């Protein structure tokens, strides 16, 4: 009897232990890239560990160590790099004020130093690639600075140890160091009207102590970089500081100092600030909502919680991804259609046959309008409405560049002024039929071939000729008083024998440039903040006209075919009859 009971107990125990604790079956669930409680704000990065000079190091080792220490961002005062310097050099060396130099440098001395030598110089060879100013702007150096005359790094022997007595004034980084120690970020600032955001791409040094999100928002608070700062504004009240940034309840909580609380009485500015934060923080956590607090308290006048999706209308690109394009087909402006349907002519004058216009530009917002050049001089505008007529908005006497719309419903063009053989231009903008001249100091003594206002409404790309050949400049439209075009910076310097055929904005930071040199056309994609050049599509046929929108490029080739770049190859949805292509704005 008792044996049987024991047996029963053993069987029960065995049955219990056969059940597993970990589930062996279940429903499939999606897994995030990094699942499991890790901080979504932190992103992996590598840093150089700066070390102090080793005893009895050779001059080359000292220079290499110095270079590595300069690339180490552990502390912003570069205390370890300074240990490679002599005391006098240490006192003078202040790299924080100078532009950081990116160069493909090598420190290779010709000969080994004499053991008894007290002084020595290590030459620097290599070419300068770019500079980064203290604001973080990347300025690519001209390609022809091949053989820079670098001052050699001189060393002296102090107490039997080599130390650098004359160091380069600026931080000298290699491309490796640049990609490791800096992150390219896009800051967003509202235009002066507060209607949209303008991107400002800068290089942000990685600060391991503060972390990337904190550095990013602090950089945003500092304000836009130089030439752009005239055309946009920083809506943060002066003196605003970031106190803390953390993740709480699956939302990013940004805690600012009390100054931000002033915006409680200015809802429009607050909205711009929220848009700025939401768009800028996309680089860190695009999906997470943001909560703004002031001094640890909820924002005065109601909690502030938002996402980037709430501020779609602030998009500096204005256009959605891969929007439908427009093209001139047999003298009529038509809209691109899908699935091989016959193209639909636009409403109004531009959509009617035999209208004799060329180089049209189109605005969909705030009004649907088409501006174009016609056989008669001037810029002609027709509404995208049934039965509209061409109206002359700008009546220039000289040759006018093709019109370009901005997002505020103003049409821009540049008139050639002065004698035919002299350089000179005047910038016009047309507002509701009125032409208003705009001062543009940089363009008054240049011929302008094209003037394209970016879709963000602040930047303008200009094909100009200052006498040395055609070049592409990026300018800033300052919408204050009677407007001004300033801050011109050269994106593509002039080159002997090269002509620039056309430019087009792809998005807020990318410009397409069609050049021709020795009968050879090439299409270049330029990032206006420099640095990285996306893959450039090669052209197989000669192109007459290009246009671009986020994610897509349209071209009209010499055979009248409509060509579309799908990222890997050119398609030809329309085989003939296309003379000009365009996307709204840009």
């Amino acid at each position, binding site marked *: 009897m008792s044996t049987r009971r024991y047996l029963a107990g053993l069987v029960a125990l065995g049955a219990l232990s056969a059940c597993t604790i970990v589930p062996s079956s279940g429903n499939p669930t999606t897994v995030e890239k*990094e699942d499991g409680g890790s901080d979504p704000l*932190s992103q992996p990065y590598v*840093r*150089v560990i700066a070390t102090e000079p080793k005893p009895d190091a050779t001059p080359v080792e000292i220079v290499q160590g110095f*270079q590595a220490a300069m690339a180490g961002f552990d502390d912003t005062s570069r205390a370890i790099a300074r240990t490679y310097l002599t005391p006098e050099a240490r006192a003078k060396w202040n790299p924080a004020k100078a532009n950081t130099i990116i160069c493909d440098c090598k420190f290779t001395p010709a000969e080994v130093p004499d053991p008894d030598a007290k002084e020595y110089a290590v030459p620097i060879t290599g*070419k300068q690639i770019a500079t980064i100013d203290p604001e973080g702007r990347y300025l690519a150096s001209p390609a022809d600075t091949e053989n820079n005359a670098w001052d050699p790094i001189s060393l002296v022997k102090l107490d039997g140890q080599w130390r650098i007595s004359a160091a380069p004034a600026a931080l000298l980084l290699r*491309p490796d160091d640049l990609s490791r120690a800096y992150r390219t970020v896009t800051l967003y600032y509202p235009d002066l009207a507060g209607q949209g955001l303008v991107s400002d791409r800068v290089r942000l040094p990685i600060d391991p102590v503060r972390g990337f999100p904190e550095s990013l928002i602090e950089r945003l608070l500092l304000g836009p970089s130089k030439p752009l700062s005239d055309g946009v504004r920083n809506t943060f009240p002066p003196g605003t500081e970031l106190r803390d940034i953390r993740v709480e309840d699956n939302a990013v909580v940004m805690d600012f100092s009390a100054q931000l609380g002033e915006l409680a009485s200015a809802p429009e500015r607050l909205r711009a600030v929220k848009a700025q934060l939401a768009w800028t923080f996309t680089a860190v956590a695009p999906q997470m909502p943001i909560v703004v607090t002031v001094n640890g308290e909820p924002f005065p006048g109601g909690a502030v919680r938002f996402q980037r999706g709430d501020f779609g209308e602030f998009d500096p690109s204005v256009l959605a991804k891969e929007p439908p394009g427009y093209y001139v087909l047999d003298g009529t402006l038509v809209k691109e259609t899908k699935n091989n349907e016959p193209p639909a002519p636009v409403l109004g004058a531009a959509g009617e046959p035999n209208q004799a216009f060329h180089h049209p530009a189109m605005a969909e917002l705030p009004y649907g309008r088409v501006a174009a050049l016609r056989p008669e001089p001037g810029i002609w505008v027709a509404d995208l409405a049934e039965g509209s007529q061409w109206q002359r908005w700008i009546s220039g006497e000289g040759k006018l560049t093709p019109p370009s719309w901005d997002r505020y419903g103003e049409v821009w063009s540049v008139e050639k002024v002065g004698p035919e053989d002299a350089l000179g231009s005047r910038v016009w903008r047309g507002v509701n039929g009125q032409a208003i001249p705009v001062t543009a100091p940089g363009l008054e003594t240049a011929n302008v071939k094209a003037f394209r206002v970016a879709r963000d409404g602040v930047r303008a790309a200009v094909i100009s000729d200052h006498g040395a050949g055609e070049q592409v400049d990026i300018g800033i439209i300052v919408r204050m008083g009677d407007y001004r075009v300033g801050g011109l910076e050269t994106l593509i310097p002039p080159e002997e024998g090269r002509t620039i055929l056309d430019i087009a904005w792809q998005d807020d930071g990318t410009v397409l440039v069609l050049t021709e040199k020795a009968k050879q056309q090439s299409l270049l994609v330029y990032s206006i903040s420099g640095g*990285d050049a996306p893959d450039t599509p090669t052209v197989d046929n000669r192109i007459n006209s290009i246009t671009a929108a986020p994610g897509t490029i349209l071209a009209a080739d010499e055979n009248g075919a409509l060509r579309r770049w799908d990222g890997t190859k050119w398609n030809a949805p329309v085989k003939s009859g296309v003379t000009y292509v365009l996307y709204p704005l840009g």
Partner: protein
Amino acid sequence: MPPPSASASGRKPSGSALKARGKRPRRTLRQIARGVRRRARRLAGRLRGAYRRSLQLRVVTSTLVVSMVVVAVLGVFLFQSITDAMIAGRTRAATAEAKANVSSVAGYFTVSQNDVPPKGGDQDTAVSTPVELAARALAERAGSRYDVIILNKSRVGQDRATGNIDVASVPERLRRDLQKSGSTTLSWRQPATLRYLDHAEPNQIGFVVGSLVFSPDGTYEIYHLFPLQEEEETLSSVLQLLIIVGAGLVLLLAAIASLVTRQVVTPVRLARQAAERLASGRLEERLKVRGEDDLARLATSFNEMASNLALKIHQLEELSQVQRQFVSDVSHELRTPLTTVRMAADLLYEAREDFDPMAARSAELMQAQLERFESMLADLLEISRYDAGAATLDLEPVDMRDVVLRAVGDSEALAERHATRFELRLPNEPCMAECDSRRVERILRNLLFNAIEHGEGKDIVVALGADRDAVAVAVRDHGVGLRHGEENMVFDRFWRADPSRARTIGGTGLGLAISREDAILHGGWLQAWGSPGEGTQFRLSLPRLAGSELKGSPLPLVPPEVEMRRTWRGQATPVLSAAAGESGVFDVD
């Protein structure tokens, strides 16, 4: 059994101690400490008392202690095995990951950085050196889960780290051992504290796995630093849970023990209370019998015992009553013939001079023995009155000095015969007391006769003392004294200190017994002290107001000079119990 309210009463002393401290801040620290100690001692004593008395408290306490020990042992064992399993699992997984990482990036290090073709260009992604590639690959794999540090002792500027980990997190010993081993197949592991740059993050507990990778540029040390913060947090929450559950379990067990013992203890407590009431004379006390268990049987037996006892006591009482009645009746019946015999004897005694000397002597003897017989009969009658509860007091306020003087006067003649002198110590003021002076005089007379009898001719001290509530008379002789234990026996009826000794004064053997009955009737005490060779002292203490309770005596029971002598010798006098309730006779003789 008092309820286990030890904790409630135990808090009081400390509370009052605090209050006292607050009230009298001038007390020195030592006094305070002494006070606290005293209170603690008192509390401990009270707790000990409660523990000794309460069975329930004892059971609950032992259950608490045992279950605490068991839960603690189990908890430690459980926690230890959870910790081991968790840490071991994590360590194993992390080490495997570190090894996999190292072997996957080892390929980058097969080329020297000098052999890498310069890429140039202005591209952001221009990464050329092997260590850079390896560090990026490792950073990508590590994410924010752990950190990697790459060190190269022989080349300058080849040290890399991911995240904001501080290089000082790699323990020196691990580096040394790793460098010494010089093997790429072996990895080294060591627990460490992970530090972060500028304390951007708090230090974390973790461990470091180090491996070597050979390269044309020298040997690279690759350290993986894994934080164990999550495990630490999980384990500490598990620990908290264990402690809470353990404490709850212990308390639950104690509550269960308390409940179970209550079921047993309550009937036992009722039985005890019933037994106490029975002992105090309430013979009709019975227990309620419920059920048929052991406790019910205990109650049945108790009840049987109680009824048997009551029966026996009743029988004995009846027997005693019969005996007393017999004594009383015999005494009464003897009086009538005795009167006749007495009258005849008186006649013979008065005419004795006419008899021959032999007959005259016989008449004298008869007369004396008849007197003794008479007084004995009187005493017997008196004591049977007490036994019957028929004695009453004739109360009046009297000056005790007069009572003492009268009693001394009555004893003068006997004292002279024994060549004994009285030393009177009387107060100057009147000592008024409400009492029956006849009875008190009889007591004092008895005491004085007794003292003369045993005083061996030495002085007898008679002292009268009074205070607000009571008066006392002490009679002290310096005779042979009493042996230890005889202080109460002297009040027994017909007791004799030395049976061989003859009665010289002709006491009846009932004097002290009657005196004690008289004292009790007054609500007073009659007590004796004696010591061999030091004499005897009897003390009569009476309340000033009849009917009021006597709380103390104005005179000491032990003579002051004896007490002083003993104190010098450093001995304490055993406190004599107040003789009350029992009757007895000191054989005075």
